[in-house]
């Protein structure tokens, strides 16, 4: 078979999709290390075609069987393989929840779960494809790490780190293309778990992923220069030094593309409670119901509680 010419997403000049950069990063590492495996229950991506064609012995099509995939992944780690499981976010979390609990968490297996299209990423598909609760459901695992990158630059750092030190981690990837935040001046430090993007005075917004990116772009051109912004990309576990960062603010505003029950804002609330800090906190999230509506992601945000312009205005 004639080899096709594939794009190298990691050096593409146009902002690529997160999933393609993610798969490319794993691909380059897997080329050098035969113990790095990639499995998916039938999720495709242009970058994955290259992986499948060039290193088929490290690719596993699990079948559209997320439950089996998770247990198999745990088995592979017990044979000293590094494994990335890649699927749509709802199906790699809720669909195989008990497998994650028993095969991965309880056995403390270094399985990396990669969920694509978190939040309302699959906006036109409806609630079957949304994850409006994945932070709440996944963060209860005591030994999990949950990371939500807000651009491809930070995501590359995360993937490299996982390859270096495989562990039980849920990587929440966005389906949409997002503009870059991180660069030479704004460094991404995975160990820290958060980045203070904008220094504020009294009030600070805390968010992650797609919404964080959206808020960042809006605050950059807003005249409200006293609102701080923190990218809390690692919501589990939250680094202790986060406390120092938010102590200076009078009011904290969390914004998440989730239902707030048990989610991102709840994690911040609990963190403050554990550290015995009393502070005014407002949590913004999606309206708590199932929506079957057309119009796209921004339309749904505006309609169901996440109108970012309004939130900024109200602060």
């Amino acid at each position, binding site marked *: 078979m004639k080899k096709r010419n594939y794009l190298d997403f990691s050096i593409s000049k146009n902002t690529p999709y997160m999933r393609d950069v993610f798969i490319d990063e794993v691909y380059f590492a897997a080329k050098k290390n035969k113990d790095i495996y990639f499995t998916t229950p039938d999720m495709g991506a242009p970058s994955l075609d290259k992986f499948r064609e060039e290193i088929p*012995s*490290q690719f*596993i099509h*699990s*079948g559209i*069987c997320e*439950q*089996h*995939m*998770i*247990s*198999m*992944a*745990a*088995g*592979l*780690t*017990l*044979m*000293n*393989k590094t494994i990335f499981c890649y699927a749509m976010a709802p199906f790699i979390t809720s669909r195989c929840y*008990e*497998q994650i*609990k*028993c*095969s991965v968490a*309880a*056995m403390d297996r270094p399985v990396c779960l990669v969920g694509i299209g978190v939040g309302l990423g699959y906006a036109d598909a409806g609630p079957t494809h949304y994850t409006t609760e994945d932070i709440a459901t996944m963060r209860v695992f005591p030994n999990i790490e949950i990371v939500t990158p807000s651009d491809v630059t930070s995501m590359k750092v995360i993937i490299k780190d996982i390859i270096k030190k495989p562990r039980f981690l849920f990587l929440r990837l966005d389906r949409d293309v997002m503009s870059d935040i991180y660069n030479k001046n704004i460094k991404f430090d995975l160990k820290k778990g958060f980045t203070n993007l904008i220094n504020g005075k009294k009030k600070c917004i805390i968010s992650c992923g797609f919404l964080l990116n959206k808020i960042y772009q809006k605050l950059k051109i807003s005249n409200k220069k006293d609102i701080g912004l923190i990218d809390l990309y690692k919501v589990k576990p939250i680094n202790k030094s986060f406390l120092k960062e938010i102590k200076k603010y009078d009011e904290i505003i969390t914004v998440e593309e989730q239902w707030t029950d048990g989610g991102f804002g709840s994690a911040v609330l609990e963190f403050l409670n554990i550290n015995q800090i009393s502070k005014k906190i407002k949590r913004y999230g999606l309206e708590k119901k199932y929506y079957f509506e057309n119009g796209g992601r921004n339309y749904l945000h505006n309609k169901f509680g996440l109108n970012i312009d309004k939130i900024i205005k109200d602060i």
Partner: protein
Amino acid sequence: MSNKKFLINKSKWLRKEIFEMVVKVNQGHIASSFSQVEIVISLFYGSILRYKRNNPKYKDRDRLIISKGHSAMGIYPILADIGYFSKKELKKYGTPQGILRIYGDKSIPGIDATSGSLSQAPGIACGFCLAAKRDKKDIKSFLVLSDGEHYEGSLWESAMFASHNNLDNLICIIDRNKQIILGKDSECLNLEPLGEKWKSFGWNVHDVDGHDYDDLLYALEKSLIPNGKPTAIIANTVKGKGVSFMEDVTRWHNTMPNSSQIKIARKDLEKNTIK
């Protein structure tokens, strides 16, 4: 002593060991552990499973998961006997001082994966077998499955995966005692025709008497010869085998015998239960 006589003696020994462990702390599943006795004895003492005595971490060992996790405790006496941990641990089974619990978990030497939630082990074993195949290592995985696990969809996900990937190093032995908690599977939700189900998923299927060493070992030895397909051995067994009042009686799934029943059981277990 012939090999068969040796195995029959091992059966008697294992049932007695399991029984005393359970009644001492009133914890465990006697009946489920008794139906699988000949299966696990065949694996460990019938030259089927590759392992090194005193070395549970031997890299190239065959893997074994008692997928029906509630009877994982049924192999603890064997694991002690082959030197995976001290025999003193058997006396501490189910106590805070001991390492042995009803359900096997990975912290126990010789337990290759935590089980207890039904039909996750087949997926884990697919991971073992696929890794071994791709690394070109002759490592097999053995699973002891229950009837009840066949109701879980994830079992069939793994069954399909194993045959598609030609995992002929995967051998599932089904402890077919035909009982689930509320009664016989045929009365609750019929599993038959079970062999045909496995066959249609692309597996080699053997139907054997699960208490007959000739029958069991014939099928197990056959399963060691790779032919591109995984193997399911349906071992027809009797739940509670060896204790007269427990045999094939549903309520003994996790009921504890009282003192007079213990006396009868001990007497029963002094006899050879199999031929």
